[in-house]
């Protein structure tokens, strides 16, 4: 057995931000368990990201390299990590909860007779792993059983990238055996959905609307408030899925990541995927009829009430204040 292994992802030759958060989680787990923490960087050419993590407090850093890992495929990553873990026998494998990890980590765990504890927000003594349930309205505390490897992925923003401790680690290379014929899927180039005309990422104020608005016809109610505040209009996923607002206005992990001065959430319950996209906002206001809605957990100001009454009153009050 060889301790805790953090799987580090590279993005454009650099260690991705969420991977640093996974390293921080790995270091925490190592402290709790008394194990050493190491990092593995899968890819076709990993010299640069491996060098980046090698100056952190890690036991070893391994470049898991093969030319067939140049473009991500589940088959390629599964074969590479399966062989690497067979050689290293980790007690814990820690992943960033990225779209890529969501794609292969459950299968990797299953291949080894394990189950992933995914999207973890906290690691406690035990170790116990906390993750959200019921769209964020409930927390679940999980524990790994048996003697095999425990697979954990950590949610974006749950651990602090700047908390990663410095040190130095020895770098080595592991070359998995992968045949081109074993890769069954053919990935194409990444592309943008449509031309961006709204840049929520740089907006100072955003008023976002969610399921609570009930019908497309009611959206102008929220638009008026946004206009009065000089804010951009954003939305949660269901609104864009229904075609009530353009997809580019979607805030969350699959839409835009925003960090305005003011984020006003109207009729948004606050599913994890939405919160990840806006919790960097300076001031969050939530208006929702359900006092138990998870959006209130990240709100600075909350109003429990019927948005169809609250929003027009608020628009009036903003207009009055601006004179």
């Amino acid at each position, binding site marked *: 057995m060889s301790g805790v292994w953090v799987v580090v992802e590279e993005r454009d030759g650099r260690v991705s931000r969420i991977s640093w958060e996974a390293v921080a989680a790995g270091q925490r787990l190592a402290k709790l368990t008394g194990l050493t923490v190491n990092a593995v960087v899968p890819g076709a050419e990993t010299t640069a990201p491996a060098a980046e993590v090698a100056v952190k407090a890690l036991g070893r850093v391994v470049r898991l390299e093969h030319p067939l890992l140049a473009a991500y495929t589940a088959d390629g990553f599964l074969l590479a990590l399966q062989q690497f873990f067979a050689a290293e026998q980790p007690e814990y494998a820690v992943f960033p909860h990225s779209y890529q990890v*969501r794609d292969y980590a*459950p299968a990797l765990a299953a291949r080894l007779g394990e189950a*992933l504890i995914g999207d973890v927000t906290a690691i406690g003594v035990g170790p116990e792993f906390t993750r959200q349930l*019921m769209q964020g*309205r409930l927390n*679940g505390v999980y524990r790994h059983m048996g003697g095999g490897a425990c697979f954990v992925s950590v949610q974006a923003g749950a651990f602090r990238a700047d908390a990663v401790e410095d040190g130095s680690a020895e770098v080595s290379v592991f070359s998995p055996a992968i045949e081109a014929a074993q890769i069954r899927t053919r990935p194409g180039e990444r592309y943008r959905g449509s031309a961006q005309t709204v840049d929520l990422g740089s907006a100072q104020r955003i008023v976002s609307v969610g399921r609570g608005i009930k019908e497309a016809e009611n959206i102008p109610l929220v638009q008026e408030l946004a206009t009065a505040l000089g804010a951009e209009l954003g939305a949660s996923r269901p609104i864009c899925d229904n075609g009530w607002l353009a997809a580019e206005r979607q805030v969350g992990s699959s839409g835009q990541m925003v960090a305005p001065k003011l984020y006003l959430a109207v009729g948004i319950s606050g599913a994890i995927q939405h919160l990840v996209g806006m919790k960097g906002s300076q001031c969050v206001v939530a208006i929702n009829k359900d006092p*138990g809605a998870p959006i209130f957990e990240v709100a600075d100001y909350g109003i429990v009430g019927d948005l169809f009454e609250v929003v027009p009153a608020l628009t009036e009050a903003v207009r009055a204040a601006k004179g």
Partner: protein
Amino acid sequence: MKIVVAIKQVPERDAQVRVDGAGRWIEEPGSQYALNEPDAYALEEALQLREQHGGEVVVVSAGPERVGATIREALAKGADRGIQIECGDLGARDALSVARLLVAAIRPETPDLVLAGLQSDDLGQGQTGVILAELLGLPYASLILHVEKTGAGLKVKRELEEGWFQTIELPLPAVVTMQSGGNKLRYATLMGIKRAKTKEVRLLRADALDTESTPVVVLERVLLPTKQKTTQMLTGTVKETAAALVEKLKVEARVL
């Protein structure tokens, strides 16, 4: 094309969440259960593929007796038949164990395509579809918005982070997990509801499927989330709260 869709019954989104006495799960929300939303999109994709290319759509679901209602709902929307895996301990099983149950029901069907929603609204693990592929030994693609059948296989549109997409080609048979929002969901018609009553639903008992069920991961307890911030809740008449909020945004938060 023969398509199997794995579906799950989950508490309705608006259902009250109360932790049960043992602190292990939530109190059963009475009759407030619904078809998991991403699974509804998986079903919709399957029905559209059948409309274009012919074939059969079979839905499979595991859970207690009440799951039958959700299977009937899928049949009313147009699925051809259903398989219900009666399983009283779904909550005590981890993702791997649940997938093993589903695989025991799916494998004998030898489908061309297995579809599943990318995650459930209750546990939200987002693993079942991917594990199904691993256990069935099939190529897969996850987080898919659209499936197109090509000559020998599939061309799928995958969602990536922050507004990016990717096209992936894969051979059949395959497993695909569907993201919400790629299609418009259909409603069951009156005729559909009537027809669903005569469609076949085969009952399988979980213990008779004899799959490995010792969990490697357990949900030990559930609790209501603690606040990450101190929230000032504003109360009073609508007019008062609106005025109070504007004042606070100006003076305290200084964001107006």
